């Protein structure tokens, strides 16, 4: 198993190199440069030209790429024009928020998904199943923004159970217990919103897998051995049915860690997703580039995680 994972990690290296190259080239071919908007309009065009020469604007792309990789490896991804902060520092501030929010979202999503998936698959075509299927269709059709706004309106504005947005109230001192409690309090509504929507994939997968396995050959074998039905379910049906859900877990986690753009935006939650959309709107390209690379790396790592999970849960995938 270790060998499979090592090989999988080695494949990661060319993947990330190609990714970074593509992203760099796309950014490189975008019109305009840092001098177009940032500079004092009174500076003469000849001086600008001189600066461009000096900063290597006319260098071939591979030299620029090499320079960019070099500084990126040294932790320098440029500076945000909007926040006047190094990009890395800016992302670092937001990453923690997104991490905790996505963790909570993932927990809620899997909890609901596995519970409802089992119910729905086990009691196929009965009332509970029909209700759950209806829910998945509604959730599938529901735009995140609309659902988020509905929840804010109902639970934050009308009922006042939860705050309208943000990550923590200003009155609390960082590091104290009430501070953390308030942060969790702020996360509940956005995490529920995300969890209730993202869970449908898990529900539907689990439901159809359970239905498929319910009368499969090895399940009939188990019944022919006299295994009680609830054990047939937990030991034979569920363990097989949960495999695809487990295999998607890596992708899901990567997706969530990228920060849900819409949820963070609607709830004014200061995470990476919101930073991303704001940076695009402000043409803050250094931040956008860094975030795209981060998302890309997360996705690649997510597939790695999925593969690792698969080798752990499915004995057929183990390579000796």
């Amino acid at each position, binding site marked *: 198993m270790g060998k499979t994972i090592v090989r999988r990690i080695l494949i990661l290296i060319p993947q990330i190199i190609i990714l970074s190259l593509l992203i760099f080239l796309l950014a490189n071919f975008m019109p305009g440069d840092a001098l177009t908007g940032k500079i004092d309009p009174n500076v003469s065009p000849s001086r600008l030209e001189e600066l461009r020469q000096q900063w290597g604007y006319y260098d071939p792309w591979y030299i620029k790429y090499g320079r960019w990789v070099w500084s990126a490896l040294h932790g320098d991804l440029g500076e945000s024009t909007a926040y006047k902060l190094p990009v890395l520092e800016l992302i670092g501030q937001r990453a923690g928020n997104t991490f905790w929010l996505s963790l909570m979202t993932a927990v809620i999503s899997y909890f609901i998904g596995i519970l409802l998936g089992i119910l729905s698959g086990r009691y196929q075509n009965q009332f509970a199943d029909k209700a759950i299927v209806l829910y998945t269709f509604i959730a599938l059709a529901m735009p995140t923004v609309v659902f988020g706004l509905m929840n804010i309106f109902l639970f934050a504005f009308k009922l006042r159970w939860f705050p309208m947005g943000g990550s923590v109230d200003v009155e609390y001192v960082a590091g104290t217990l009430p501070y953390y409690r308030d942060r969790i309090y702020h996360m509940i509504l956005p995490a529920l919103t995300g969890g209730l929507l993202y869970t449908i994939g898990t529900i539907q997968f689990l439901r159809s897998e359970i239905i498929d396995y319910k*009368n499969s050959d090895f399940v009939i074998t188990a019944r022919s051995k006299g*295994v*009680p039905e609830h054990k047939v379910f937990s030991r034979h049906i569920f363990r097989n049915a949960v495999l695809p859900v487990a295999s998607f877990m890596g992708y899901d986690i990567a997706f969530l860690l990228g920060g849900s753009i819409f949820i963070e935006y609607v709830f004014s939650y200061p995470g990476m997703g919101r930073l991303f959309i704001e940076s695009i709107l402000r043409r803050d390209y250094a931040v956008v580039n860094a975030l795209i690379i981060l998302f890309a790396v997360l996705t690649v790592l997510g597939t790695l995680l999925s593969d690792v999970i698969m080798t752990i849960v499915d004995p057929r995938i183990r390579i000796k």
Partner: protein
Amino acid sequence: MAEKELLRISNLVASFSINGGYYAAVDGVSLQINENEVFAIVGESGCGKSALALSILNLHNKANTKIEGSIYFKGRDILSLGLEELNKIRGRDIGMIFQDPLTALNPLMIIGAQIEESLFYHTGMNIGERKKRSLELLTQVGIQSPELTYHQFPHELSGGMRQRAMIAIALSCKPSLVIADEPTTALDVTIQAQILDLLRRLQKEMKSGIILITHDLGVVAEMADRVAVMYAGQIVETADVNEIFSNPLHPYTKSLFASMPDAYRNARKDQRLPVIEGMVPSLLNMERRGCRFAPRIPWISDAAHEAVPQYHEVKPGHLVLCSCYKNFYLKSIPRRVSSSTLR
């Protein structure tokens, strides 16, 4: 008969729900199996053999199956039992061997765990005893290194070894009846012979009854004591194995034997292999009146069939359904058959 009765099935009807209606795949089957007897059920694909096998332990999907009639196992009506009672019989008194050992074994469980499962529910054995018994069973079914196989997953074994493991599972609690649903169909020919040898050897050792479901007449000749021939959900002929091979009567039985390569020892080489015309009717468009085999022997006049086919006991223990056997002759090789059956 001197043998003690083990299983008696009376007028069993197993119907599946298709598009709202119920269609009988097993339609009025009655049979009786004695202790220490190998009872073969033969027939083409789709004639209801497997449906019958699954009905015995009530293993059909309950949502779309209806089972009527009665199945007495050692004097108890299995069909009237609740699931909990039935689970005490499943695996302990009646073991099942399935056709495809790859899909019939749980891909995520090691072989040992799958054997031990029935031991766990039916015997009071502790972990150590269960493992000992599993290894013993694996040795018994001819697995070379039981300790290794015990820890292997189904996908790590060859087809033959998987079927051996399957047999070990079915026999783990020394059941008095084993239902083997086409146990050799998914295997290579050489492995088939080994598995059959194994089954026969174990049957002799354990003195259990076997219901052997197959479409392979060679397997029947080799293994069975008594044979039932099934067609379109009904048993059309029952007899001892010697009787059925020496004196097949029902048109379907005759056609089956005739279509077996080299079935008649003096078949000419230039002769084309006889086939049975038409196909087994599907559940949805099966004629449920009169003789069900009649559409496939159109050269036999309608008058030869009974309106409501009855079983005719031509000899003790030899039953034939419908009177059409009296006037039947094989069409493709009429010269040879005419002498024996036209009378």
